[in-house]
């Protein structure tokens, strides 16, 4: 039997969480070192999975399957395909950098890392789950630690409100999707939750048309689809840095990914029927999100809304149901995850030192923290879709998909690029350049080495994918191929 690498990845965080809870709370260094070691282990394994994924062979690899509840056809079935492999890597990276950046956290670090790691297990689990039940199981695990993480360690002003709003939104979404999933399970008559089997279930068109919106929107809530995106900026802003990174970086991908895996892949006919109008919602996401981001004065809200805009592109790529669009969306999930993790890391570093996030009150940070400024600029360029960075590699095929689908949507969506450019430039100019306000001079210190390592890792990935797309695109492409095969095309 081969080494169960996916299971090890999934359960490493939660086992670490339990271990952490056994360490006395006051031994903080020990706790941090344990957390970092586990995170490193996870990122190492996920990179291993990613780089040993055979894109030429395609399909699901590293598959493990055990019975869980045979009576109902529930199994523990995991595996990665070309779409989930990058996301597993993404999670590993964000987890690792998140731990690095939270090194200085001083209030109950034991609980913090434990909850964060439970969250990580949920996220890993969803990305690798090939069983519908397992997917929901891990999906919910990923949702609830968020509440505690935000409400305990979050921004004091809005954390209670935001945490509750976020949890309820996501919970509603997931249970609605759950009902849809149960309907699929029974209607298939196969008595299995195995998604690979359900893909072949051939649900009747009427069934798919009725149930597709339940499943798709249930998950897309977490993907931040308009008009259910409201929780996300609030949640991002209220969360502590590492959690924002996780949240925007990985969790939103969870929604999009599940919407694809469960909604689109299992009910292709429903997708074909509904996506033509859903694409308008995503268009609103893209343009409106960018516009709202532009008018924010809170640094973190700018980034929060930019996530709404970028996730709109992911869902838009899905909605085109074309090869290019799906490839772009797959890469965009990864690229946006890394990028937004970088953004939130930067915001956190600035806020920790300035204790304000009002853009007009900041300025001149490049002089004291050049690394952070450079990292933010790189992230900003990715966000603008600047060629040479991963954002371009992702967005370009999405737009090509749109051209194949409905050209004018591509044209309208392209407006967001200019809007994004304008707010990113504004933020860079105001926060990092210009003159530093009097009260900060001499009080702002540079970030630690660990922070720099985290930022460096994220930047290298963003540039690496941008300059050499072959490191990722063929893998995503192989995943897209299997999605499209469900639509009767290649």
């Amino acid at each position: 039997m081969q080494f169960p690498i996916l299971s090890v990845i999934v359960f490493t965080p939660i086992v670490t969480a339990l271990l952490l809870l056994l360490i006395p709370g006051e031994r903080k260094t020990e706790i941090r070192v344990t957390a970092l070691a586990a995170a490193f282990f996870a990122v190492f394994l996920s990179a291993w999975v990613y780089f040993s994924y055979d894109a030429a062979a395609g399909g699901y690899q590293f598959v493990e399957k055990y019975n869980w509840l045979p009576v109902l056809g529930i199994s523990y079935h995991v595996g990665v395909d070309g779409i989930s492999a990058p996301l597993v890597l993404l999670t590993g990276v964000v987890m690792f950098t998140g731990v690095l950046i939270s090194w200085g956290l001083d209030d109950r670090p034991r609980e913090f890392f434990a909850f964060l790691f439970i969250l990580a297990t949920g996220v890993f689990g969803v990305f690798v789950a090939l069983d519908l039940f397992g997917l929901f199981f891990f999906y919910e695990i990923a949702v609830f630690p968020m509440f505690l993480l935000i409400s305990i360690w979050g921004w004091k002003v809005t954390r209670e409100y935001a945490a509750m709003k976020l949890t309820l939104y996501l919970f509603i979404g997931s249970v609605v999707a759950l009902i849809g999933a149960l309907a699929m399970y029974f209607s298939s008559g196969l008595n299995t939750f195995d998604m690979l089997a359900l893909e072949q279930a051939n649900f009747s068109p009427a069934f798919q048309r009725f149930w597709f919106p339940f499943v798709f929107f249930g998950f897309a809530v977490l993907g931040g689809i308009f008009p259910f995106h409201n929780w996300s900026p609030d949640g991002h802003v209220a969360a502590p840095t590492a959690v924002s990174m996780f949240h925007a970086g990985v969790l939103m991908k969870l929604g999009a990914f599940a919407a694809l895996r469960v909604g689109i892949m299992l009910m292709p006919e429903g997708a074909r029927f509904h996506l033509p109008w859903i694409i308008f919602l995503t268009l609103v996401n893209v343009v409106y999100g960018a516009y709202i981001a532009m008018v924010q004065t809170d640094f973190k809200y700018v980034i929060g809304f930019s996530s709404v805009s970028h996730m709109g592109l992911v869902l838009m790529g899905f909605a085109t149901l074309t090869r290019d669009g799906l490839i772009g969306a797959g890469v965009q999930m990864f690229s946006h995850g890394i990028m937004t993790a970088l953004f939130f890391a930067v915001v956190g570093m600035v806020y920790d030192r300035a204790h304000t996030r009002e853009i007009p009150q900041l300025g001149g940070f490049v002089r004291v923290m050049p690394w952070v400024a450079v990292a933010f600029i790189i992230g900003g360029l990715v966000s603008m879709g600047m060629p040479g960075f991963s954002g371009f590699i992702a967005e370009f095929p999405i737009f090509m998909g749109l051209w194949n689908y409905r050209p004018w949507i591509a044209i309208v969506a392209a407006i967001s690029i200019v809007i994004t450019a304008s707010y990113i430039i504004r933020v860079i100019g105001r926060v990092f350049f210009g003159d530093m306000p009097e009260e900060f001079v001499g009080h702002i210190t540079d970030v630690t080495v660990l922070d720099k390592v985290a930022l460096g890792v994220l930047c290298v990935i963003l540039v690496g994918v941008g300059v050499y797309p072959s490191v990722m695109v063929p893998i995503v492409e192989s995943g897209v191929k299997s999605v499209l095969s469900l639509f009767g095309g290649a």
Partner: protein
Amino acid sequence: MDPIANRLLTLILFSPTIIAGVLLFLPSGEKKLLRWVAFIGSLFPLAFSITLWLRFNSALPGFQFEEQYIWYQAINSTYHLGVDGLSLTMVLLTTLLTPVSILASYSIEDRVKSYMILFLLLETGMLGVFLSLDLLLFFVFWEVGLVPMYFLINQWGSEKGEREIWGGRKVQARTYASFKFMIYTMAGSLGLLLAIQMIGVVSGTFDMPALFSSWTSLDGTLFGLPITTVKAIAFWAFTIAFAIKVPVWPFHTWLPDAHTEAPTAGSMILAGVLLKLGAYGFLRLVIPLYPQEAKFYAGALAFLATMAIIFGAFASYGQDDFKRLVAYSSVNHMGFVVLGIAAAAFAAGTDNAVIALNGAVLQMFNHGLSAAGMFFLVGVIYERTHTRDLNEFGGLFPLIPVYGGILIFTSMASLGLPGLNGFISEFLVVRGAWPVFTVYTAVSMIGLLFTGAYILKGIKKTLHGPLNEHWIGHIAEIKTREVMVIAPLMVLMLWIGVWPAWILDVINRAMSVLF
């Protein structure tokens, strides 16, 4: 061919990036070291491109030194480089102007490391545009060049000056200018991006040589529209993107701001190379991809070019700010490039077209030399006087005779004095365009007249007239390093003016093949 030759273009393209990478690991306090490493490093691409020039066989049609590797397979885009006479000229210009500009930037004291890194990255971006034979790759480099330029203006631009923006809020002029530069260019390239995507979707490839034949021969309907309509829209998307960059009137308003606020070396590169990107785009993409549309709309383009020539000259004459004066002169001079291109598009296949194009391309090269030189000279005097107001100068010739001589020489080249380079190219453009667009060309000649006027105004206000006594003892003669900067430019100006054949031959071959 030997391994070096096989990879020559890649070497040219990425040697600046590698130098930038080296700089990254040098201590930021060692300014002298950083400057010299950057300068000597930037001589490598120059050496490579001279090698390229010497090895280039202008007798062969088509692209040479081609390299093609897998890059973005999923959408069929490759890393495809190649040069012909047109791009070769531009590569030479770029690799020449970069070391010169770096040498001119020795007076930069603030964050030298970042400055030099950005400068070298900028060079890679510009070279990439000239070398790419893949539409997507072209766009990549097209955009990449923008970012370093933005930061050069934004961070190292002139520190004085404020601009009022909407809401009455005041921002630093350089912030305003860099933002305007960025947004104009981004907005322009948006259409380009969309059009490129559309072409990619329709053709299934981004390879330029392949597109030149497949895209032009496409007919039928597309997206429910007749193909001609789609092409016309795409044509304008390309045209506007490039027209903003050139810049063609009325898309030029970002240019005076950006030029004025940029640091000296930034202006040199901006005027010397970046503006050429737009013209290069016309020649490399618009005319080959849209011959019919180009022909159809050539009249409009010629009109715009004429306007650019006239208004550029008038506006330039009206300036009191020396740098702004030179900036508007760019609008004026680039107008001739566009006029040549328009004429060629209209009369494609005739001798006139080839002549006009030869003129246009040579004008690109020449303007690169003279504009860079002029900006540098403005920078030199600004460093000493900290003002650019022409009215505060006057009668400086006796105080700084060497500088004065150089300024007059360069101005004359810019003005188009026979015997210097400007004359050759403008003459060729006018000669080629006259039979095609007689009226426009005739009107443009009036612009040429004013070119003389504003240049003489600039010389008069600085060097001649009553001496502004304030400067006695306060203004120093041009330094050796600065002479080293301008010297190669002056040599080339003279060389081309006297014996243009060495470069025209290469250009001419390429142009006759292209059209």
